[in-house]
C-alpha cells in the first residue's frame, strides 16, 4: 500500500461511520450528512413521493432512523440521538443498495396513501400473493421494480405488501414468517 493510500485509509477511519449497535437519526439533507452512505431525510421523503406518490405531509410527524447498514426505521415518538435500545418504531425502508426497498409493514401502514406503482390484485391473485407465490401478470403496463400490491376488502382497496415486478412476473416478497394460506374471498 502506498503512503498516500494509508493516509487516506486513516482519514476515512476518523470519519463517523455507521454503528450497527445503535439508532442514529437521519440527517435532514445530503449536505448535513456526516456518516458516509447514510440516506438523508430529504432523500427518503423524495423517494416515497417519486416512487409511490406519497406526499411528505404524510410523514411530517415521523422521524427516520438508521440501525445496521441501510435499514431505516420510522418512529413517531421521543428518543435520544443516538439511541441504544432494541427498537425505535418499526422497520421502514432498505437503503444503501441500488433499488431502495420498502418493508411490507411500511407499505401496510402507509401504502393506502400511494397514488402510483400500485397493483390491484383480484381475489385469487391476492391469496397467491399472500402465500408468497410468484405469478405472471403480463397485463401490468406500469413501471418495473417494487410495487405496492393491494386488493379489495369490503369495498376499499387495502395494501397487502411489496411485490417485485420484472418480465411480466410479480414476485411476492412477503417474508416467510408472514406468509399466509388464505381462502379466496370473492
Amino acid at each position, binding site marked *: 500500500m502506498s503512503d498516500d493510500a494509508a493516509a487516506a485509509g486513516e482519514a476515512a477511519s476518523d470519519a463517523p461511520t455507521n454503528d450497527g449497535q445503535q439508532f442514529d437519526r437521519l440527517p435532514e439533507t445530503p449536505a448535513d450528512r456526516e456518516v458516509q452512505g447514510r440516506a438523508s431525510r430529504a432523500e427518503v421523503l423524495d423517494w416515497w413521493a417519486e416512487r409511490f406518490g406519497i406526499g411528505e405531509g404524510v410523514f411530517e*410527524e*415521523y422521524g427516520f432512523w438508521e440501525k445496521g447498514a441501510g435499514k431505516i426505521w*420510522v*418512529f*413517531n*415518538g*421521543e*428518543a*435520544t440521538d443516538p*439511541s*441504544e*435500545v*432494541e*427498537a*425505535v*418504531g*418499526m*422497520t421502514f425502508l432498505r437503503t444503501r443498495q441500488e433499488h431502495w426497498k420498502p418493508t411490507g*409493514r411500511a407499505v*401496510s*401502514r402507509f401504502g393506502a396513501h400511494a397514488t402510483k406503482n400500485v397493483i390491484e390484485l383480484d381475489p385469487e391473485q391476492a391469496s397467491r400473493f*399472500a402465500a408468497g407465490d410468484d405469478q405472471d401478470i403480463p397485463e401490468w403496463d406500469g413501471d418495473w421494480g417494487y410495487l405496492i400490491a393491494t386488493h379489495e*376488502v*369490503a*369495498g376499499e382497496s*387495502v395494501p*397487502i405488501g411489496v411485490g417485485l415486478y420484472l418480465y411480466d412476473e410479480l414476485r411476492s416478497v412477503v417474508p416467510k*414468517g*408472514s406468509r*399466509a*394460506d*388464505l*381462502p379466496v*374471498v370473492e
Partner: protein
Amino acid sequence: MNPLDRYESLVDDVDAFRAACDRSLPSVVRANGVAASPDRVREAFDESGVAYEPVDWHDGLFRLPDGNPGGNWPYVHGWTHGQEEVSVLPTLALDPRPGERVWDACAAPGSKTTQIADAMDDEGTVVANDNNLGRLSALRHNAERLGITNTIVTNQDARNFSTKPLAFDEFDRALVDAPCSCEGTCRKNPDVLDQWTLDHVHAVAGIQKGVLARAVQATRPGGTVVYSTCTFAPEENEAVLDHVLANEDCGLVAFDLPLDTDPGVTEWEGETYDESVTRAKRIYPHRNDTGGFFCAKLRVGGEGDGSDGEGVAA
C-alpha cells in the same frame, strides 16, 4: 395439589368457580384501531364468512367460535390481534392518552403494548420493556404487524430499569403486567395448574414487588401506575400492593371496569393487608365467563382522596 383448592374460601360460589375453570375459552381477537375500526373488521369478517360473536362489554373484541384467529385477511392486514378478553382490562384502567409517555415494564409479547399504543392513537411514546430477549422478538413482530410506530423497545430488568437510554426520565403512566403463577389462564392452558408450586409463588412475589416499586419511582407525581396479574394468589396481588404502599409514595385509587369484579382481600393465611387494597379488582372466571385476573390502579404521590380523579370512562 390443585392450587385452585386454596381459593375456595375467597369465592362466593365454589361450584360455579370450579366449573368455569374447567371449561375452555374461545379464541378472541381485539380490533387494532391503528389499522381499522371495529366496524371495518366486522365488514371484513362478514365478507369472508368468518364466524364471530361480539363481547357485550367491549366493542373492539370478537369471539371466534371456529378458532384459527390468524387464518383470515383482517389478521394478515394487522387489523386484529389475538388477545384474551380479560387481558384488555389493564389498558382500560391505565387509560393512556395521545402524546403521553408510557412505560410497559413487563411487555412481551406485546398484547398490552399494542393496545396502549392504539389507545394513544399511535402518538406519544410507549417504552416496551422485557428482560427476555426471545419474548421481545415476538413483541417486535406483533408491533410491526399491527403498524405501531410510537414504541421504543428496551431489554432491561425492570426492577432496576434505567431511563438513561430515553429522552426523558419520568413517565406519565406505567403498566406492570407482572410475571406470575398464572392460574387464571388455566382455561387456556391447564398445564399451569400442574406446574404450580408455593416456592414459585414466593419467588415471583419478590420480583413483582421490585418491579412495581420501580414503576412507582419512574412515574411523575400525579401519574398513574396499573398493576395486573393473571393469578388468584393474594401473595402475588394484595401482598405486593401492601408492600409497595408501605415503601413508596403512592396510593390505590378506585376505578371502574366494564364487567363484574370482586374487591381485593385484606386477609390471607394469617396476614392482613392495608384496607385500601379492597379498591383493587379480582376477576373470577365464573362471574363473566372469562379467564381469571387481578388489576389495581395506583396514583403516584399518594395524597389523593382515593377516587379516580380522571373519571375513567370504561
